[in-house]
């Protein structure tokens, strides 16, 4: 069953990552690339957190480590930030 729709990562792959030692949503992300797609884990983050909680009998860990941009922004658009804004 697919958990991460963007990258088509299955529940089995996530469970095997946990059995290989992953304990956080970020660990799973680095190991099997779940949550690295277009939505950046917005849907699967919580699901992975629940799978971790179930497999490891722990409180669901907080998902991911959010960084800007929280929404897709074209890289070219970052070049358009007015220079004055960046100088300060």
């Amino acid at each position: 069953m697919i958990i991460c729709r963007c990258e088509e990562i299955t529940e089995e792959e996530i469970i095997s990552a946990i059995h290989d030692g992953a304990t956080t949503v970020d660990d799973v992300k680095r190991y099997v690339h779940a949550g690295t797609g277009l939505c950046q884990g917005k849907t699967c983050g919580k699901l992975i957190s629940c799978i971790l909680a179930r497999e490891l009998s722990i409180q669901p860990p907080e998902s991911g480590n959010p960084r800007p941009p929280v929404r897709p922004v074209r890289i070219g658009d970052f070049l358009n930030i007015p220079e004055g804004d960046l100088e300060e």
Partner: protein
Amino acid sequence: MKEAEVAVIGAGPAGMSAAIELASCGASVSVYDENHKIGGQLFKQLHKFFGSSRHYAGTRGITIAEELKEKLNSLNVDLHLGETVYGIFPGNVLGIHGNGENRLVRAKRIILATGASEVALPFPGWTLPGVMGAGAVQTMINIHHVLPGKRFLMIGGGNVGLIVSYQLLQAGAEVCGLVDVLPYVKGYDVHAAKIMRAGVPIMLGYTVREALGEKEVEGAVIAKMNKDGTFVPGTEQRLDVDAICIAVGLQPLTELARIAGCKTEYQPLLGGYVPKRDEYMETSVHGLYIAGDLSGISEASSAIEEGRLAGISVLKSLGYDVENFDERVNEIKRNLKLLKDPGRQKIVHDPTPIKDTKCKLRVECYECIPCNPCVTSCPRGAISMKEDITNTPELDESKCIGCGMCIAACPGLALFLVDTEYSDTEALIQFPYEYLPLPEEGSMVDGVNRKGEFVTKATVKSVRCPKANKKTPVLFIVVPKQFAEDVRGIRRLARK
């Protein structure tokens, strides 16, 4: 770099309410929302809200959104729609993208009102087209007037699942079943009663086992679930549906708050991890406030109150003279306690047995929920509540004159008038009916009971919808006397 005195991120009920407080007091406010319309989720809420009549109870979400929008537009607010805040950088600097621009803005104070997103539910087949979130369904049917399926399975018996089921019926779809793993209905009893009268089976202890279909949903299998998450063999049922709606919860959109460095805490009752905040809605980051679903999943009325609280707290922190600050803070806190006390137990009383009485009103509201429009709509003061609005209504039969003013006022559609003396053999029943098409006066319809089951043929005596009903028509139907206490609705008429 552009400077803003206060930046509000999110123009839903919380953000709008905060901006209104701020601008009313003369603060300079910039509001950002990635959507092209203000109102957040409010414009999708076509049902009447609960709560206190002094606020917005009995008003539809869409009407509340219009009122807030009008107020916001009348004030001097710098509104940026279609602009996404994609990051918060040290020194309360916002990265803003949209409308062909990418710029940074420094704000003295920030109010984050980013709301929540839906929680998904994985099951075999959940990635098939036709499986969708309840919010998406609401957007399609209520905003874009597109029906994304004809026959739905609803997963989740919380208020969202119950309300969206009702809205799907109103939009002309069928809801073939509502399943929830819990042994009880988590949402409000009156919301469940509405869809049960419409014939929606509510299957408790059940959940979806798989979605069937090759390229899209062609059916669903539901089954009873054990406490350990396994299915009870032999309980599988196949439902002939073409759409599956997931309404299993919401999670606060905390990304921006976390990027800004706000400490969070795990609060399962509030939807998972939420930013820590003090009683004035300020987070662990100085100058950064939160309001609405981001601070814990609740409904729009609470978001409005929290927005107000964040708004006046920011004003105070900026040195504005906020009239009666302490009093206002206490009032908002009282309202919030009534609206959302996560510790409040679900209290549902047993239905009151119907006595042999001259009084025509039937109050089928048995759950303690924060709501009081029945009390305020009664011109004779026949309905009252002990202490506060979270109690169930009490009827003084000697005062009720059977005028029916309360029927359309009740947001839960839980009040009925039953005149057993209408004629020697017939009774007249009045009830709210929010489906199109409305039956014609004089026509014969199918009278149904509280579970939506056929009871008897009924004649429609009249259909009334004066302006005061706020778009809740009241039907008057005549049924044989012996069915007076069974019939509580009619079968919906087919659309042409």
